[in-house]
């Protein structure tokens, strides 16, 4: 069938839209990437996304700053430990949730759903953490974030798709529930667990809110908190430079100082782990969402 004129216009319009969309999605990232490498065009502007004078100068400044290693390692630590703990507890809990014949099963489900809709609010939670003595401890970044009701319901849904005859035959062979979970169900649910562990890992890597709430010790900062601090400092410096420029009316200071390059490099460094796992992430996450999605 030959496409009609209106069909053709429709096609062209869609392609124009998507090219614009691509630019909108990509340019912010590419612009920051360019800024992080570019020492040549400090201050002066250009539309080009290719650095005028390529250099690793800003990265060297950051890597020489001892202050960023601790936050980086802290974030890496809570990501690895938190994700492992989270997946272990959630998959095990979800197994019990998937046993509909278990007395009290409904109670567990309600226990998970109610806090999704109503909670004590920030202050009672804050005071709880204080009374538990978790203030300023790395554990406060791991434990309160390690269970998610959504994730457990998602895993539970996946368990339902595993054919019951598998565990029945194991039961006849005399296997106990935990053995069935560990030896049969867990190995069969790698797709959903991969998806959820990636979500969880990204969540831990991006830990910011609980870190600014509960951590005062710079040694225990997470990477996003450190990054935030640096961006704010850069912004302040930038503002000062700008006001100086307005006062003196000259361009010389701008040429010698380009604080945005440093924060740009910092942004790129913090994105690096996610960019590295992104291809892997891409493969699994769509499947992960669909597994738990409600059939339309």
């Amino acid at each position, binding site marked *: 069938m030959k496409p009609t004129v209106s069909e053709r216009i429709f096609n062209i319009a869609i392609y124009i839209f998507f090219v614009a969309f691509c630019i909108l999605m990509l340019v912010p990232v590419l612009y920051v990437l360019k800024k992080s490498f570019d020492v040549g065009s400090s201050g002066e502007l250009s539309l080009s996304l290719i650095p005028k004078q390529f250099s690793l100068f800003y990265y060297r400044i950051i890597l020489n700053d001892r202050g960023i290693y601790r936050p980086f390692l802290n974030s890496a630590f809570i990501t690895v430990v938190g994700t492992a703990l989270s997946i272990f507890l959630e998959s095990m809990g979800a197994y019990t949730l998937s046993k509909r014949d278990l007395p009290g099963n409904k109670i567990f489900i309600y226990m998970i759903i109610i806090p999704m809709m109503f909670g004590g609010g920030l202050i009672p*939670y804050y005071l709880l953490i204080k009374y538990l003595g978790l203030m300023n401890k790395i554990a406060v970044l791991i434990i309160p974030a390690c269970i998610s009701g959504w994730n457990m319901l998602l895993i539970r849904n996946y368990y339902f798709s595993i054919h019951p005859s598998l565990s029945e035959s194991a039961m006849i062979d005399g296997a106990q529930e935990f053995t069935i979970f560990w030896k049969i169900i867990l190995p069969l649910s790698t797709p959903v667990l991969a998806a959820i562990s990636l979500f969880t890992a990204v969540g831990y890597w991006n830990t910011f809110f609980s870190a600014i709430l509960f951590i005062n010790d710079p040694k225990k900062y997470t990477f996003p908190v450190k990054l935030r601090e640096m961006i704010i400092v850069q912004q302040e410096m930038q503002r000062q430079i700008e006001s100086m420029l307005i006062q003196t009316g000259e361009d010389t200071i701008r040429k010698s100082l380009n604080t945005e390059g440093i924060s740009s490099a910092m942004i790129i460094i913090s994105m690096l782990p996610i960019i590295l796992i992104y291809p892997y992430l891409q493969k699994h996450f769509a499947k992960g969402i669909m597994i738990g999605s409600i059939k339309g």
Partner: protein
Amino acid sequence: MEAVDNLKTAGIQKKKRIFSKRNITLYLMILPVVVWYIIFAYVPMPGIAIAFADFKVSGFKGWVGFDNFKFIFNLKFFWQSFFNTWVFVIYNYIFGFPAPIILALLLNELRHKYFKKFIQTISTLPNFISWVVVSGMWITLLSPSTGYVNYIIKALGGEPVYFLSKASMFPALFTFIRIWKGIGYSSIIYLAAIAGIDPELYESASIDGATRLQQSWHITLPGIKYTVLVIFVLSFTGVLNLFEPIYVLKNPMIESTAEVLDTYIYSMGVVQARYPLATAMGLFKATISLALVLLSNFLSKKLTEDNRSIL
């Protein structure tokens, strides 16, 4: 007959023994989760009582009834942050909610498989970047002197705009950045729903001479109606939670439109340690959230033909 009897007695035995060896194993498996929920979700709930008490860092000083509420309801900044929160919520439902649906519908019209995949890949990436990074990026991009956007404005002969210092612009700007971050990710679920529509419907429609636009209006959109409704209802559960994105983007110059309930509660409770006032605000917010969820669930019951409730 004997077999049936055996089954019956087995069933009765199973019912009687709640704490059979098997059940105990299962209870033990969920125990850590239960303990976690009790501590981190249920213990803070009675903490709401602080809203009705005189409570200082030093401890409990007695009940005061609704005095704390009377106090916060007389605060000008409280109502301002309340109003601002609603501006963001309304903007989010007018622009943010339809955006991923439109993207999914348009992606569905793309016939080029690899281009489609490429779009999906780049559009979902920002979802995995933290708000801190996203804000850093847009602050750089929108900077009046060195930002890309202002460069283009200047090149086109306009005056540079101090985007993130203009209070009146912030709600629109914030909504835009939020859509930028979430659009690709949110569209996945709609794409999944679209993939589930029977292809024969399209075939017969195109034989009947329906254009692509008509097809997406009369087939695709009704086909994902239920998914849209589910996402709509679920979206109410966290709609007033705006802390992180607002906190990283706001600055003192735009406080008048950028301060929301969450950031106000934070500065009142955590920064100034006025716990009862902040708790009262939190309770006010939680009540509205709950009412919204129940209302939307009720509406979804009314709107669907078979009275399906989502919760």
